[in-house]
């Protein structure tokens, strides 16, 4: 059983009388424990694919199986439960609630999972420790640095022990040095056996993954060949330099 399997997935938007396929027959299999990057320029359909993988959206046609469950048939409530228990989101702009503390931000998914306050307290503290923020649990986001905010967001993504962690341009709002630290954290999580999906247009980020999937114009162009990224973007370890990726050719 694969963890995730997309079979000939289409996502079609209608703009006036024009139909437009944001995803044009995408098939993709992701196994448990994989560390994968989905790369593509903006407008390529990678955000749409991420939304479908993250169960925020459903395909227009085709099948998307999450742990062998066809999510196209799930209700709003079932999708919400699936997102809550199986998917940990990390966003480019962190998306922390400004008016509550780091602790409460991390705790939020557990509240929707209806865990007891005692269990919540224990697990949130453990998660904060795991991302190295034990001392910052009562600080509000505006008292944290960008890197710290992203760490809070990662702790929040981990809190319900999800099947996948889905990170959308996780270093996009960080300076390069902080970006490297965050990527190191992701690498650690991958080593510990978590399934990680990075969605990025940044080859320096994608290079951390063990597999890179390139998407252009709603179709998957290349799969499972990390070597290609290397050859395109230069030597490993050069995370500081922002790398431009060719736009739609």
């Amino acid at each position, binding site marked *: 059983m694969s963890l995730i399997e997309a079979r000939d997935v289409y996502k079609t938007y209608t703009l006036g009388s024009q139909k437009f396929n944001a995803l044009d027959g995408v098939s993709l299999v992701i196994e448990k424990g994989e560390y994968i990057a989905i790369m593509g320029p903006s407008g390529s359909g990678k955000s749409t694919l991420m939304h479908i993988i993250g169960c925020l959206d459903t395909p227009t046609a085709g099948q998307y199986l999450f742990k062998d469950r066809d999510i196209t048939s799930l209700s709003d409530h079932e999708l919400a439960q699936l997102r*809550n228990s199986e998917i940990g989101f990390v966003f480019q702009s962190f*998306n922390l609630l400004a008016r*509550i503390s780091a602790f409460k931000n991390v705790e939020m998914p557990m509240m929707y999972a209806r865990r007891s306050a005692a269990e919540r307290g224990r697990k949130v503290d453990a998660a904060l420790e795991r991302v190295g923020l034990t001392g910052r649990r009562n600080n509000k986001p505006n008292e944290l640095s960008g890197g710290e905010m992203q760490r809070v967001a990662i702790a929040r993504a981990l809190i319900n022990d999800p099947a996948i962690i889905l990170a959308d341009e996780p270093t996009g709002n960080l300076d390069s040095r902080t970006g490297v630290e965050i990527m190191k954290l992701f690498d650690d999580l991958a080593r510990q056996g978590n399934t990680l999906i990075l969605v990025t247009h940044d080859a320096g980020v994608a290079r951390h993954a063990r597999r890179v999937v390139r998407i252009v114009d709603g179709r998957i162009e290349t799969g499972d060949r990390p070597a290609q990224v290397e050859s395109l973007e230069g030597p490993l370890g050069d995370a500081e330099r922002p790398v431009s990726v060719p736009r739609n050719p």
Partner: protein
Amino acid sequence: MSFLDLIRTSLANFRSHKMRAFLTVLGIVIGVMTVISILSLIQGMNASVEKQIQSLGSNTIMLQKAAWGMGRLDVEEISKRKDLTLDDADAIALLPAVARVSPLKSRQLNSVKYRGHKATDVEVDGSNADLQFVANYSVESGRFLTRDDYQHRAHVCVIGGYIVDNLFPNEDPVGKELNLGTGRFLIVGVLARKGSFLGQSQDNVIIVPYTTYELTFPKALGFGGLFGLTIQIQARSTGDIEKAVDQIRELMRRRRGLSYDKPDNFGINTQDTIRSIYKNITGVAYIVMIAVAAISLLVGGIGIMNIMLVSVTERTKEIGLRKALGASSQNILVQFLTEAVILSGIGGLIGVGLGLGTAGIISALTPLKAAAPIWTIFLGFGFSAVVGIFFGIYPANRAARLNPIEALRYE
């Protein structure tokens, strides 16, 4: 999310928007305060009128020349009606549902004097010994009129508290004598105070035997003259009032030879007659007052809706995030509804408190009396919660239906 978490989340949200929460609550506070204070004043007024109606005497029926009611009296038609007679009274006394009967004639004296003291606008009643029970009088000192007084046309009287205050401020009136009309009357008793009825003192009264009254006062003129003799009747029990009224009506129609298609040419008045007149006069006014109060509650509700809509728009991104983290549409709906209901509930509580306070202040400073039965409090509180749900459901639904992807993109 558990109920407790919902409330905590809502409260945290209010804390970060204190001014906004306060202004939202204010609308509801004013609405509920108005409803509660008006309701409790109305209740107070109703209770005091009811008490006054009771003070007229229990199970009392008044047979008169005309029925009380709203609208114009046809004075000419009434003046042509036959006067009631003592024979009528005697006949009524024999009816099975009737316990006691008192004939009663009344007139207003401009003034009554005693050794330089003066009481004005005094009502003099001529009646019999049974009036004490029929009209619910109790005697404070001395005695009431007796059967002998009535039969022997005794020149005796009992007086109300107002007369004592004005004529005998420092002495015991029992045993003193008063000049009334053409006669001289010995005071034999003082009545316990009854208070006022619809703003009119019931203690400004002197009661003499009916027989002596007829001797002392020439035929009365004006309104009293128009009505002539009133027969006050006490039914055997409260439950017998209706039966007694029917028996009296039948008897009087028979005595006057009225055919079945003719209307009564006399009036039977009970406490219910007074109640229905009171309700007629005040009912519309009450409805208007409550409607005005309800409108202010409505305005408060619209305020809640307005603020909630702003809040939903402002928190679009938060809603998207919550959905991404596992909140279902229902979770979001319940969360926003909870916020609306908590705000309006708090407003309702404060409003009930302030409303009762306002009613209390009004009743302390004016003759109006306030009374707030428990149900008005629940009503005010319940109303505000309903307003919260009603005006919160639209914004909450709007929040719940946001698409998480678009909401997350919202800046």
